[in-house]
């Protein structure tokens, strides 16, 4: 590899790479992020390697492995360039046919995306509704980049923003541009990145540190993984520009251990950038020097909080500290430190290249640009979606996400992870940005968007988040540590059918105390999932408390299973599968569940053949009625005896 000592070297390299790229007339892209790999993309890639070697018609084809393309539901995806023909759920056995058709210009119908709305097959990737309604800026290049190849990134004008910043702009100009773009932190808070940089730049002490936060601990969110895995150089470039702006020569990647592929790709990106001299001393002859280190997070949600994360980088326990002096002034080893999220930094090169005015055209008045959401849960097209700020939830869930599977009813969408809240159907048409979500009692968070259907119980969801936070609270301050424990107890009682009406008021009081008195943002926002479910689904709480009824049929202690004697065909399936032998009956003898033995595991409900559907899941009044009826029958039986 040649050392790039001046901008000219970089330009020459880029030109030669572009010529080399054009030597091939077709590119076969195999999407190989974590989701793709879980679905067998490695095997598909190996099959392509073999096939291209032995197929003489394939000499003009080049195989490429990319990171996450976002459409996780249909992985492994194979995309043929330049046409962008998109094949879904590809298996190794499909490979010879794909190569054959690609060389003759044919299309394989059965592997195309099937649009269930129009009942039509879609050929091109950009016409699939999942991609069509997106506006991909940060994630857009993932499809053209092998994340382990720095050359791919450079070909697509990678590191041109860095060049522009360090050679043609002063740090103040960079900060001014970012401030003008009103780029707000994508990690959750939505704090303007430019202001953060300015504070850090103006802090007197040196050295200064710049950190990228990829400790993406929000359950149900994986945007940062997508970016780190798919385009690590874009984050590195953003980090270096930020470093230049604040006056730092040392950067850190803080990546959680649970993301092995993101770690691998980042390490590789750093190594390659060093080889080119894009990291190190006197970068591109500008006089700016920069080095980076990777720190692995060791599995603690609270370590994603800025002061906690900085403690972890120091090698200490990742617990938050009081921030009366901001980390921008006193962070790592008490030196000015600036922490930005992955997506925020990956956006920076685009702003530097295209200007703040371009960026400001996208989005809403106070939230500019695009945002990646992880659209998951009970939705047809799960995956990562990047949309302009101001897109409505309805568009994301129904247009891009394709609605709710199995024709179930939409109930709510949870945004902002454990710090956010749920949003019911009535607010689906609100254009989402940082401020609108706050108004609804939720928050943007890092971008998790978990769709829930009628079979999701809101009390159970609240309990889930509180339980999660209970184990993740570091325990340093009382309101968070004790408050969460008590909330968990109270919610536990409600889902067990032991709730009291005054519980709701107690929860609200506790939640407010935690908001006011907790040390860090984790504690201050911890009650949000409960408070927002109470405000939007008050009746569901009351049903649990008053009628011992879980309308969504989720809370186990409030459920019973019954076999409808009219429908039961005595097929013995449930009887054999019941783990606690609670089902009585026999061959040609209608089955019946012994409620005293039953542990509500639901096995009988799952295994009862579709054509009979004899097992019923019931709760609340139905359950009481059924119990009374059973009692009567039993009394009747005794009477006959």
């Amino acid at each position, binding site marked *: 590899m040649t050392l790039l000592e001046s901008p000219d070297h970089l330009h020459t390299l880029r030109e030669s790479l572009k010529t080399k790229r054009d030597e091939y007339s077709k590119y076969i892209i195999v999407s190989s992020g974590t989701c793709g790999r879980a*679905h067998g993309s490695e095997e598909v890639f190996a099959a392509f390697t073999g096939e291209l070697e032995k197929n003489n018609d394939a000499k003009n084809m080049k195989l490429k492995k990319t990171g996450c393309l976002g459409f996780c539901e249909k992985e492994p995806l194979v995309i043929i360039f330049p046409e962008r023909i998109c094949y879904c759920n590809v298996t190794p056995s499909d490979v010879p046919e794909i190569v054959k058709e690609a060389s003759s210009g044919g299309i394989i119908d059965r592997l195309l995306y099937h649009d269930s709305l129009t009942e039509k097959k879609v050929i091109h990737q950009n016409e699939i509704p999942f991609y069509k309604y997106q506006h991909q800026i940060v994630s857009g290049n993932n499809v053209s980049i092998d994340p382990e190849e720095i050359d791919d990134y450079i070909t697509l004008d990678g590191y041109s923003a860095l060049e522009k910043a360090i050679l043609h702009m002063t740090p103040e100009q960079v900060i001014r541009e970012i401030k003008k773009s009103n780029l707000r932190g994508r990690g959750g808070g939505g704090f303007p990145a430019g202001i953060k940089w300015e504070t850090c730049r103006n802090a007197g002490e040196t050295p200064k540190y710049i950190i990228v936060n990829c400790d993406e601990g929000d*359950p*149900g969110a994986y945007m940062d993984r997508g970016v780190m895995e798919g385009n690590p150089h874009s984050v590195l470039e953003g980090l270096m520009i930020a470093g230049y702006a604040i006056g730092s020569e040392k950067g850190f990647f803080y990546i959680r251990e649970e993301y092995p592929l993101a770690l691998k790709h980042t390490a590789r990106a750093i190594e390659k950038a060093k080889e080119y001299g894009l990291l190190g001393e006197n970068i591109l002859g500008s006089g700016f020097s920069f080095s980076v280190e990777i720190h*692995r997070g060791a599995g603690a949600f609270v370590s994603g909080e800025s002061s906690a994360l900085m403690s972890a980088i120091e*090698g200490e326990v990742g617990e938050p500290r009081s921030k009366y002096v901001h980390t921008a002034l006193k962070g790592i080893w008490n030196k000015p430190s600036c922490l930005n999220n992955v997506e925020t930094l990956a956006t920076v090169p685009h702003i530097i290249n295209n200007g703040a005015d371009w960026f400001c055209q996208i989005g809403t008045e106070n939230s500019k640009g695009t945002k990646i959401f992880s659209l998951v849960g009970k939705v047809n097209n799960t995956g990562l979606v990047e949309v302009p700020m101001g897109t409505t939830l309805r568009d994301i869930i129904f247009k891009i996400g394709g609605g709710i599977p199995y024709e179930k009813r939409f109930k709510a969408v*949870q945004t902002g992870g454990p710090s956010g809240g749920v949003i019911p159907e009535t607010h689906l048409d609100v254009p989402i940005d940082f401020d609108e979500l706050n108004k609804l009692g939720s928050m943007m968070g890092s971008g998790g968007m*978990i769709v829930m259907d009628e079979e999701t119980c809101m009390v159970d969801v609240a309990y889930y988040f509180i339980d*999660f936070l209970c184990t993740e609270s570091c325990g340093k301050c009382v309101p968070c540590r004790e408050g969460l424990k008590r909330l968990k107890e109270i919610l536990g009682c409600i889902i067990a059918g032991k709730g009291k009406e005054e519980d709701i008021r107690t929860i609200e009081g506790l939640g407010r105390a935690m908001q006011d008195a907790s040390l860090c943002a984790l504690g201050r926002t911890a009650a949000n999932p409960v408070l927002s479910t109470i405000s939007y689904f008050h009746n569901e709480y009351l049903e649990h408390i008053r009628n011992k009824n879980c309308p969504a049929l989720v809370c186990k202690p409030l459920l019973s299973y019954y076999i409808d004697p009219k429908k039961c065909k005595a097929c013995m399936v449930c009887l054999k599968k019941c783990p606690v032998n609670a089902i009585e009956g026999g061959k040609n003898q209608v089955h019946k569940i012994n409620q005293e033995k039953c542990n509500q595991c639901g096995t009988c409900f*799952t295994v009862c053949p579709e054509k009979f559907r004899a097992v019923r899941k019931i709760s609340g009044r139905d359950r009481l009625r059924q119990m009374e009826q059973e009692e009567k029958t039993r009394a009747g039986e005794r009477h006959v005896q």
Partner: protein
Amino acid sequence: MKTTDITRVEHILNTYRGKRGILIQLLLDIQHEMGWISPYAIDLVHKRMKIPLSRIYRIASFYKAMSLVPMGKYLVRVCLGTACHVRGGGKIMEKLEDLLGLEGEGTTGDGKFTLERVNCLGCCALGPVMVINDVYYSNVEPQKIEGILKEYE
């Protein structure tokens, strides 16, 4: 501790000598290399790196990725992130507890399996997700788990 094990740990320690803020990274490496962080390894870190025992234990007990007890041959991790939760991750956990004879997280008596719950593996679209060592299982159904575990007998 076997001499070979001591060499393995010392090899890790050598890469961190003279650097700042390394304790978490170093313990993670030991965890990966040895499968757990044994009292002997901790003692070695304490003596060679001159770090107080209390600090090492504080870190090793705080983080989820570090284990102070030996792990099973196969590490079974069940994702209980929100997306997996609404898609029935809890049932997967219950089934595994049942099949492995464990109550919650833990290691089986024969040292074969360690069961762990994780908060989110970031494969939310595939939920519920289960990972055995490095192999990801997507859209897991409780009925299929027994068959999957048999592959690791």
